[in-house]
């Protein structure tokens, strides 16, 4: 089933960590397997924030050797960053297997991402000037507690609660997906793509990488591919409505925008609240009510609709 949520503070910032936790926790019944956040803080043009993991959570209980392996993998990450000319400003573990680095780097992002992901067990969750992508197993309360997201101040966010149906229960298959290797682009999705393998094969032939077998990843890579060819976010989303088969509603976020697209059958839910100060979207209104308990006007976007808002 899965639940998705998004919010934007227009021309201001807010505690998006706390707000997204409240929204996702109220959608827990739609997917208790994993929870993920794409949080957008104030962009720092001179810096990149890297979120990556060096092992799956499940590996941590499979023997002592994994602890040593993670240390070795992290040392290799540090060495490769230095080799490519990146300067580490801050390096902190979010958990034993997931890390947050602030770096300066002037080179090619794809080369950097590819080189770091070449380290065994490494997966780049996100790279961006404002984006920080956090995902792990369990509900929002658990992930929030693990990663200390309360107090994360920013402009906008998207999030996901996952019910695993056609791929594994692991961090690799959890949402959001970063639109590798585009800085600050992330996607969450509720639905099912029926032309996943055809679409994936076509994109892989164009040189894109996939880390999971989750159909939602295809949306992120598809949008990245279209934008790389010069399409705007909105145009890329509109073409996705035509080219992606199946039933879906997805949210995509960039450094300053949040977009929503719904398939032509309108088979997957989405409720929208829009005001001058705030926009909130979720699979169910109960998530929006967790942030706005007072009476507000909400509505359903229609079939085939694409909307993009600026923060």
């Amino acid at each position, binding site marked *: 089933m899965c639940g998705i949520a998004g919010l934007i503070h227009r021309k201001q910032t807010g505690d998006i960590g706390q707000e997204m936790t409240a929204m996702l926790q109220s959608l827990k019944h739609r997917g208790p397997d994993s929870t993920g956040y794409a949080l957008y803080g104030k962009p720092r043009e001179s810096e990149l924030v890297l979120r990556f993991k060096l092992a799956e959570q499940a590996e941590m209980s499979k023997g002592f050797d994994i602890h040593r392996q993670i240390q070795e993998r992290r040392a290799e990450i540090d060495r490769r960053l230095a080799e490519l000319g990146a300067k580490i400003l801050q390096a902190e573990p979010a958990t034993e297997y997931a890390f947050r680095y602030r770096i300066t780097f002037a080179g090619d992002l794809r080369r950097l991402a590819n080189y770091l992901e070449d380290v065994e067990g490494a997966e780049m969750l996100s790279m961006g000037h404002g984006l920080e992508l956090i995902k792990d197993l369990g509900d929002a309360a658990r992930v929030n507690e693990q990663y200390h997201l309360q107090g994360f101040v920013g402009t906008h966010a998207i999030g996901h609660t996952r019910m695993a149906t056609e791929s594994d229960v692991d961090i690799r298959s959890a949402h959001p997906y970063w639109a590798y290797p585009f800085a600050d682009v992330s996607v969450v999705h509720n639905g099912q793509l029926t032309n996943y393998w055809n679409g994936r094969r076509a994109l892989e032939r164009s040189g894109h990488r996939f880390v999971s077998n989750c159909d939602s990843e295809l949306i992120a890579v598809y949008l990245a591919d279209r934008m790389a060819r010069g399409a705007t976010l909105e145009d890329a989303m509109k073409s996705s409505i035509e080219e992606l088969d199946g039933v879906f509603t997805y949210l995509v976020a960039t450094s300053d925008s949040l977009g929503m697209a719904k398939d*032509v*059958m*309108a*088979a997957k*839910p989405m*409720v929208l609240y829009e005001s001058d100060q705030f926009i909130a979207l979720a699979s*169910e*209104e*109960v998530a*929006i*009510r967790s942030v706005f*308990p007072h*009476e507000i*006007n*909400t*509505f*359903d976007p*229609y*079939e085939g609709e694409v909307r993009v808002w600026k923060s």
Partner: protein
Amino acid sequence: MALMTKATALGMHTEQLAGRTQQRFFKPEEEPRYTYPQAFEVDFDRQADIDATDLDTRAINLRIRELMSEGYGTIVLNNPGAKHSLAVGILNRLNLQIRGSLGYFGCGLVDGPNIHVSGRVGWSCAENMMAGTIVIDKNAGSTFGAALRGGDLVCKGDVGARVGIDMKGGTILIGGRAGAFCGFMMQRGRMVILGDAGKNLGDSMYDGTIYVGGRIAGLGVDAVPAEMTELEGQWLERKLKMYGLEAPKGIKNMQKIVAGRQLWNYDNLEPAEKKLIL
């Protein structure tokens, strides 16, 4: 006028005009009155309030039932918080005022209550409703009134897709626009959309009637336009007035959609085949 004659004049091929809600439009003595043997005797002048803030769905629905058993005929439900499956399975006369919004499956499987929702309702509101009235002041999600069998279901704002899918009777009134596939496999009843209707309107409908006040994005398979009768015009006028609604371009300019009946193949089947399909 005989009931069957009236039904035919209203553009319906098979529908019998029956049930409590029809009493508002026709002579009460013509209509059978039905209440469940286990229904509670309630007094509409006795009012009780429920604050739903800290209650879960089950507790709220049980509290409504308890209050009805105590004879309360008017219940005000405050702070519903868009929780799911509220006010379901009410098989009783009841005046229920919901102050706020409902989540999924609100007011489903009801038979008899008069419900007013001041906010919005989520997907599948009033699914399988048998009789009574439900009026929503704001918007509604998709599958509004799915498999409706009777009563009046009114949304004064916009609704999502698949309104009245598989509906088997009753009336759905929408003040604003509606999404795609409304009236999909509709079998009986009437649907009134005062704003625009999405594509595939009335797709594969067997029977029933759809009236649209705005633009129709596209008709579904076997849905065809038809001429509106005078009695239908009168019915629409009274029905809209009753709920404070107006056709933006006037009732005379509304479009009427019915089943083309090209998909009616059942009569050509052998009894054994019919049993398999139906």
